[in-house]
């Protein structure tokens, strides 16, 4: 922590960039030593690359061809409507990653606003917000998802919104806890005593110290978000046909499980690989940065 400026004009306090850097580099090194975490990260990167660049090389995932249904043309064959399975799996990856990122970002934003407010202002604000968190957490994710998607109407963004609301409380609590410990520190007390406005204190002194651990946590959880999207789509409350999502692909393919298990296995195994990889990465991140849930 550095104190700048002459003492007579009040204490100007900055947060220490060196401390953040140390946190990051130490954690990075510990992460690199965690084998499952590294392998998981590699898998995620591969899927990410395929998802981003894949469509340049694949056929149209929505092109129906009733003359070649359930065949083994192409890399992975075709589905019941003659659409190329591999292309659809790639499309599903794009959907999954898009929803994961969007839902996580939205969730974090909401959590940040509410969590920091709860921690900083305390009192009745904290009581109410904590109750809100409790209430949302009582719902199983699927239920909340169905509820919200049914109300607004199913689409890609609605799914992301629904999931973001469901995951928000966990991160909100983390923000709250981090904020509580942050405001105990002396330099925040000092700045408060100087009479700066709450908003300024939060933006300049609380947020920069609070966001990193929660974001790291959230990154590890993205796998579960992807699974939630797939589950909702499987149910019919997510991405709708004819658009491809691993969830609805599996749902459609289930009827042909005995004859063409590939329809289910291709999207399912990739989803499984993504989810397990994120799980390993999440565990490794938590270990490396010494975070507790």
């Amino acid at each position, binding site marked *: 922590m550095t104190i700048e400026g002459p003492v007579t004009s009040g204490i100007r306090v900055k947060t220490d960039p060196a401390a953040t850097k140390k946190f990051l580099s*130490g954690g990075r*090194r*510990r992460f690199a*030593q965690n084998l499952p975490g590294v392998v998981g990260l590699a898998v995620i990167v591969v899927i990410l690359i395929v998802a981003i660049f894949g469509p340049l090389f694949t056929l149209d995932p929505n092109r129906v061809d009733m003359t070649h249904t359930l065949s083994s043309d192409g890399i992975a064959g075709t589905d019941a409507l003659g659409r190329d399975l591999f292309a659809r799996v790639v499309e599903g990856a794009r959907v999954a990653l898009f929803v994961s990122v969007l839902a996580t970002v939205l969730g974090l934003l909401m959590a940040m606003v509410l969590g920091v407010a709860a921690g900083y202002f305390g009192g009745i604000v904290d009581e109410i917000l904590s109750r809100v968190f409790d209430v949302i957490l009582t719902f199983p994710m699927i239920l909340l998802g169905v509820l919200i998607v049914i109300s607004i109407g199913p689409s890609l963004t609605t799914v992301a919104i629904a999931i973001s609301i469901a995951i928000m409380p966990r991160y909100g609590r983390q923000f709250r806890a981090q904020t509580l410990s942050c405001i105990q520190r002396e330099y925040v007390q000092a700045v408060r005593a100087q009479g700066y406005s709450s908003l300024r204190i939060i933006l300049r002194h609380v947020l920069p110290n609070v966001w990193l651990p929660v974001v790291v946590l959230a990154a590890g959880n993205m796998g579960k978000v992807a699974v939630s999207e797939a589950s909702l789509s499987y149910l019919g409350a997510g991405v709708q046909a004819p658009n491809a999502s691993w969830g609805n692909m599996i749902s459609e393919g289930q009827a042909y499980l005995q004859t063409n298990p590939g329809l289910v296995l291709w999207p399912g195994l990739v989803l499984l690989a993504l989810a397990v990889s994120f799980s390993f990465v999440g565990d490794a991140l938590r270990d490396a940065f010494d975070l507790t849930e």
Partner: protein
Amino acid sequence: MTQHLSVQDLKVDYRVEANGTVQYVPAVRGVSLEVEAGTSLGILGETGSGKSTLIAAIMRLLPRTARWEGRIRLGDLELSAMRERDLQKVRGTIIGQIFQDPAAALNPVIKVGTQIADTARTHDRTLSRRAAREVAAQLLESLGVPREKLDSYPHQLSGGLQQRALIATVLVGNPGFLLADEPTAALDKVTEAQIVRLLRRLQEERGLGLVVISHDIGVVESLCDRLIVMYHGRIVEAGKTADVLEDPQHPYTIGLVRASRRDRDASGRLVTVSPTWEV
């Protein structure tokens, strides 16, 4: 049955992993001591001096991250060479350990009486449940704990009663040698005096060999015939208690004794212990 404890050139390191490298941090750096049967030895030292590690080493209960070498003998038993299976029979029956925080050292979810009785039955397999319970009750009473407390959980007892219950779990096996690691550190002064008196009485009645660790000079003064002072894993002073305390030779001991007596130096400030010499 009393035994003679002998420790020869004990060294203990702890394996520490920091930032991807492995280091061995020494905790005990070549300690030798002898405790005659039926006498008591005090170990004085601050946190980090290695005294708790020493006790753990004698009991052969070092954590897995520890590396050690040296020779430990109790009577005819070569403790340092024995296998775990045999050590388990020795612990509690020949040598016992009293822990610092009785609230932490007792199992929180099992009744106090049951813990004592279970220990009794482990040492003597022929003991019936009822007989073991009776043994526990009598032992508790001899230590000043009312019989009703048999069915209490540890958190329901006061600090003093907890420590007596803990002592009961150790004494039930009738060991001839006791290692007490800061037995009164978690207690208030009044209770501390009671426990010290209790330990002294037990030592006299049963002829126990006793090793007492403390950072409190008053405690070792009351309980121990001889005294060693540990600093940084080594013994820096040893001798009869009275001699060491009245006429300390080593600078560290001098500082310790003066600090505990709240001596003031020439400029009126309280004397503290400052490590500015070679060990």
